[in-house]
């Protein structure tokens, strides 16, 4: 597919020349509205018609070939995930669109939902057809009331046009999609927590094994959970074919990705680019107009607030062909594998740029506060550790910590990492682990040895008073 020349964008919202608009093709488009007529005029639902004539197995095959990796955070190959539905399954299959978009620094799904809901629905209907789901849900975070309203309306329009309901376009395929609004908790974005929430319970994530959603998901039936952006891509895979899609981006890191840049750049915003085709430096300087005047790059959190921070000046060893080369932060190509090789992750696509006006401890404390507030509290290390870390960084920012506290802080993170029910444990431990490791001097500079023996817990003080009065 060539870049559509005929598309005009709203003034001031034109995509950057280096962007490749696929999923965001209609975002900020001039004369565009989220109604179905607009979408149909633009050739909408053509891929649905095409897909309904295909064998569902071939669609999954195509998605596998496309190399599409999940855009929700973990980057797991979508086609492979679909293939996990047990072959001899007799239970109903469900598909859930994860529209909980709550990782700080991430703001892409909302634009798709607000401006191009039919792209998502088309992707979903095709995905349901491929996976054999006759019932699908869009789990949308409570904080998107407008998004929920738009989706409801779009679903209604689909019903009118026969794209949803019984015997869709005479294919004998039935499908209903329901919008389910969350109640304001980050953990509802974790797929098994989401499923519990959808079942009407507290969103306590389930243990894996045995509760892998593709086998034991919603109501203990096979369930496919995919991110909004992932599902939209399915439509484009049908349009261009898996092989052609796989040519976008780089090997094993195919397609495009919507990067959400926030923080200390001149033009923060969303940019859809081919995966791995631009570097971090290009993203910051070309697409985002660079850092604020007079400022130097301090660090970047490349994949949502839970991704490990990358420090400016750090040297990263990555593989290039058979060789190992050393690169700096600005040379990192923005793809799944390289960011992983650099010790972080592409995550949800939220890139948070930090300049030298920020204090590492302040940023970490801000992140810790979020995770302490959002830990579901089900399992011990995350429940207790997330708040503990926050309390320590809080003291560090207030200048009331001792050097020992930094060590404690780091070990608390290690005691969470890898020991919890869900990946929230890592999500809350990685910021501390990486910030302390990479900005240790700065953290220590904020502490003072005079707090070494300071008793900060009033209860301890009381107890101590008792002890001394008794001797």
């Amino acid at each position, binding site marked *: 597919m060539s870049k559509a020349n005929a598309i005009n964008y709203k003034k001031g919202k034109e995509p950057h020349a280096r962007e490749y608009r696929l999923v965001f093709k209609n975002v900020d488009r001039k004369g565009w509205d989220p109604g179905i007529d607009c979408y149909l005029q633009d050739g909408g639902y053509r891929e649905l018609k095409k897909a309904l004539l295909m064998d569902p197995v071939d669609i999954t095959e195509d998605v596998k070939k496309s190399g599409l990796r999940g855009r929700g955070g973990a980057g797991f190959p979508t086609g492979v995930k679909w293939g996990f539905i047990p072959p001899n399954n007799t239970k109903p299959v469900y598909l859930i669109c994860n529209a909980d978009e709550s990782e700080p620094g991430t703001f892409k799904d909302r634009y798709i939902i607000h401006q191009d809901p039919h792209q998502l629905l088309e992707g979903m209907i095709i995905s349901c057809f491929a996976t054999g789901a006759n019932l699908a849900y869009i789990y949308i975070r409570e904080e998107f009331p407008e998004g929920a309203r738009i989706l409801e309306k779009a679903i209604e329009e689909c019903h009118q046009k026969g794209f949803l309901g019984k015997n869709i376009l005479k294919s004998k395929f039935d499908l209903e999609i329901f919008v389910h609004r969350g109640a304001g908790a980050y953990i509802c974005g974790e797929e098994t927590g989401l499923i519990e929430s959808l079942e009407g319970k507290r969103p306590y994530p389930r243990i894996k094994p045995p509760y892998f959603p593709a086998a034991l998901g919603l109501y203990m039936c096979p369930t496919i959970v995919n991110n909004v952006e992932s599902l939209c891509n399915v439509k484009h895979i049908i349009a261009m074919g898996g092989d052609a899609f796989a040519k976008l981006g780089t090997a094993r890191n195919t397609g495009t990705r919507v990067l959400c840049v926030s923080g200390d750049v001149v033009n923060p915003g969303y940019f859809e680019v081919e995966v791995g085709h631009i570097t971090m430096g290009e993203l910051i300087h070309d697409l985002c107009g660079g850092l604020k005047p007079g400022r130097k790059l301090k660090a970047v959190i490349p994949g949502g607030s839970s991704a490990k921070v990358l420090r400016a000046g750090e040297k990263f060893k990555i593989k290039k062909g058979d060789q190992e080369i050393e690169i700096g932060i600005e040379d990192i190509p923005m793809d799944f594998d390289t960011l992983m090789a650099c010790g972080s992750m592409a995550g949800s696509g939220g890139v948070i740029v930090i300049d030298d006006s920020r204090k590492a401890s302040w940023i970490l404390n801000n992140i810790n506060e979020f995770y302490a507030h959002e830990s579901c509290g089900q399992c011990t290390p995350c429940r207790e550790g997330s708040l503990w870390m926050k309390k320590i960084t809080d003291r560090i920012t207030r200048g009331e910590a001792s050097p020992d506290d930094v060590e404690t802080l780091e070990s608390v993170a290690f005691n969470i990492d*890898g020991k919890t029910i869900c990946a929230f444990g890592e999500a809350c431990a990685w910021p501390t682990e990486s910030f302390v490791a990479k900005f240790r001097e700065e953290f220590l500079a904020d502490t003072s040895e005079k707090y070494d023996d300071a008793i900060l817990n009033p209860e301890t003080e009381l107890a101590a008073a008792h002890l001394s009065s008794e001797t």
Partner: protein
Amino acid sequence: MSEANDKVNVQIDGEWHQFPKGTRMIEACRLAGKEIPHYCYHPKLSSPGNCRMCLVEMGMPPRPRPGEDPPKPDKDGHLPIQWIPRPAISCANTIAEGMGIRTDSQLTNECRHGVMEFLLINHPLDCPICDQAGECRLQEFSVEFGTGGSRFREKKVKKPKNVDIGPRIRLDDERCIMCSRCIRFCQEVADDDVLGFTDRGSHTVLGVHPGKELSNNYGLNTVDICPVGALTSNDFRFQMRVWFLKETNSICTSCGRGCNIIAGAREDKLYRLTPRDNNEVNSSWMCDYGRLNFHFLTSEARLTDPMILEHRAHRIARWSEAVGRAAEKLKEFDASKIAIIASGRMTNEELFMARRLGETLGIEKIAIVPRSGEADDYLVSADKNPNTRGARLILGKKVDKQLKEIAAGVKKGTITALIALDENLLKCGFEEDTLKKLDLLISSHILANPTASLSHVVFPSTATVAEKRGTMINRTGRLQRLNQAIDPPGQAMDLWEILRDLAQALGGSNGVYLLEDVFKLMAGTIKEFEGLSLGKIGDQGLPLLKPKESIPLLERERERIEKGIIVG
């Protein structure tokens, strides 16, 4: 070969074992003699894996990549183990062929230290005033896996204390470690989903749903399974330090189920009854009614001495005097004029001695008082006598139907002497006026009652719960042992002793001195008891008679075991 297929080879701390397929890792380790510390896991409940205390280092044989040679087995045929850097919970995961588990490695120990520290940072550490102290998992595992000091320098999270969550239970949210055992018990076992968590993260609090209370008849089991002192029993709290309690294995006698229990006593005072595991009877649970039905032991109405009615008033008598008077009087009657009202609350040994007394004197009319009520869908049986099946076996099938005939005989005057054992006749079809017409009424009782007031000779007897030794047969035909946890007050005696003394006074020595003697006689007389002895019965009892009913709670547990939801 097929046998081998059902077994899985696992290496635990370097040694290879075989366990059945589907065994949970934690259970495999236990069977191998390696206890894994845990809080949330309970074999009778689902496994949420939330406490993370049972994390262990785990490994599997390496999977060769395409083109790689498969791993080579060692001389015993075991493949090498590739250890996984991420620890795994051992409670919910089952073993797999070739799996390795390390219960004492650096990684495993780090996990335990970490979780222990996390559990303690916001815990109030008020052991000195906590009822759980002494049987608290938090204390126990702190000693094993904790550090002496604390690195926590922050303010602890404050939560509600002393919360009234039902008529019998109190909650201290600060002590709660959020293991969710109590919630799962209410959901999965008691079908009374009244408990739940609210709020998030470290601020999570346990509570009852608005407008509800934890008042179901099984609620106190949550207190037992709560690994810490968050849930305490109103009845037991602050009464006694648990380490002072002497524990005696026995059974509950408040209905025909015969739930296995532990009686906790100190210095002849019973403080609490708690359920004891028996997967053929009560699983790990008991009902609140049975659990709390022991306070009458210390009632003011407790009879402590034999009494003789003289000049229209009762006076305390020495034991031998009372026995002598009773025997002397009985001799005056023709056996056809005497009847015995025994009780379905008596032990087999006591019932057998009642039968012997009847045989000695030639008495043919022996009855027990039936006691039926409502069964529930869990454990409680409709039969409120704990030993109806023992009574029928020992005294004959019609024993609970003869009561009416005897009552009629007393009314008509064909029966003029009555021996009533631990039953209040006024509550089972006899009227005061007709009883007054009797020429002789000998009775035994635990508490003073109107029947005792009408009796010519009264013996103080012991209570089945905690004061007696002996055996009973429950509704499902299981022969179970009662053990004595406390000495009875005053001169109170077991009925087999009272009946032994009476029989001796009437017919001379009969060679019965000890309970064991009674059992031996019984085993020689009744074929069902053949070859048995008190010692052979053991703490879990023995199946003796055909079950006459199934136990709803156990049926449901079996289903859950089959589905792999619980271990059982």
